[in-house]
């Protein structure tokens, strides 16, 4: 135990930098993890239209944010990889559950959020006609599945405190409503998903979350002009869907 705290002190003493950009839901995941663990960090804000040398150097593979720099260690990329790293490298309340089965479950639902759920919501927002009708049904069904993961009578997916899955699905709590407004489509309603709706309010009201949640109005103003881009992304997703499930077999 002594050795562990000594190592923890060393970890904490090395400076942490997070490369991010305004408004990004995945940067939010990384920031929140750091804040929940009580890790001081320097936030470096990128303009993704004009990527810095620093970003290109530290994430040559994807050239995306967030990127975590901890001391002199090589950069860590991918938001959920960063969240698990922060959870393991630093002391503080655990973000992942302890039980292996529970860990497998939160990883599954986080992956579901980033693949099936995100895709269905995007299609529901930005396609039209029959395709959209189908996508809206699918998106709502996916929200129901996620809602089902909220433990009975608890405020968060993590139970009494915010955990890994809350962080992973945080897009639903804050960004979704903004995109809904731009698209003119409602997916998450109190009537349709009362528990999830309540969770969203709990999440965005949380003091620690608020410290790294982008301002709603500023986000709306930043995103609204890109409507056409969102529509074309949905079109690409539509055609690429055919390879996303391996033709050979499922997953």
């Amino acid at each position, binding site marked *: 135990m002594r050795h562990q705290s000594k190592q923890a002190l060393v970890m904490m003493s090395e400076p942490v930098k997070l490369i991010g950009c305004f408004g990004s839901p995945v940067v939010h995941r990384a920031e929140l993890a750091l804040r929940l663990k009580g890790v001081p960090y320097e936030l470096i804000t990128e303009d993704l239209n004009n990527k810095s040398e620093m970003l290109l150097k530290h994430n040559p*593979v994807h050239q995306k944010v967030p990127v975590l720099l*901890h001391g002199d*260690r*090589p950069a*860590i*990329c*991918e938001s959920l*990889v*960063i969240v*698990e*790293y922060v959870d*393991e*490298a630093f002391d503080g309340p655990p973000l992942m559950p302890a039980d*292996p*089965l529970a*860990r*497998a479950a939160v*990883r*599954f639902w986080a*992956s*579901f959020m980033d693949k*099936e759920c995100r895709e269905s919501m995007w299609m529901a927002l930005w396609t039209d006609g029959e395709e959209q009708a189908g996508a809206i049904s699918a998106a709502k069904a996916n929200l129901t*599945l996620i809602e089902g993961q909220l433990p009975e009578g608890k405020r968060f997916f993590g139970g009494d405190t915010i955990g890994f899955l809350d962080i992973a699905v945080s897009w639903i709590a804050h960004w979704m409503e903004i995109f809904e407004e731009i698209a003119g489509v409602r997916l998450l309603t109190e009537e349709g998903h009362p528990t999830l709706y309540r969770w969203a309010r709990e999440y965005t009201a949380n003091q620690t979350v608020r410290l790294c949640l982008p301002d709603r109005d500023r986000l709306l103003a930043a995103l609204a002009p890109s409507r056409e881009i969102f529509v074309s992304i949905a079109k690409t997703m539509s055609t690429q869907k*055919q*390879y*996303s499930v*391996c*033709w*050979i*077999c*499922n*997953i």
Partner: protein
Amino acid sequence: MAGGGSNEVKLLGFWPSPYVLRARLALSLKGISYEYIEEDLESKSELLLTSNPVQKAVPVLIHDGKPVCESSIILQYIDEILAGVGPSLLPEDPHDRAMARFWASYINEKLVKALNQTWGGKTEEEKAEGMKQAADAVETLEGALKDCSKGKPFFGGESIGYVDIMLGGLLAWADVREVVKGVKTFDPAKTPLLAMWSDNFGTLDAVKAVMPNIGKLVDYAMVMQPHGAAAAAAAAAAAVAATN
């Protein structure tokens, strides 16, 4: 497996699947005995539909009646349940673990998607694009192997780990690709470290025990290719015409 309970392990699988192979490699490496249940994906079992209602896909690991889905998640689960038994799949150090998770994710997001496109692309252009992206991804992974292995044979170092299995699950199909399309996924001329890695990986007993039969997999690939049957018939007809 450690702990109480019946410790009964089942794996729902489909023999051609590279993702199922990943799960089998991990179980083999850790020396876990389990019941393997082959699924007919055209007619999915009740057990599969109830164990993975969201995706209705394999592999599914069922441990004491509780399902775990998705190959990357199954691998981590096996590693955590069996911490201390057999070689660790994920490294000890949190930073090394993060790197392993990053590369596992990269393999799925970039390489697997590109390879799927080379097989399933609707046009020759799409297939060619898949080929190019696959080649780029393999080149990137060559660099990753160099960084992660630190001179040892595997991503995991001396013994195979999480990333090795995530990539190794694709090796059977890489062999099929070479036979059917004449393309080496891990070409010694372009990515020498990965070429050596794939040879080393293939010689391990734990790997040989679960690798599917390549000839059988080639037959499967030929049947599944959209124009495979038509092309085979045309070739047969041409052969008959030539001998007449």
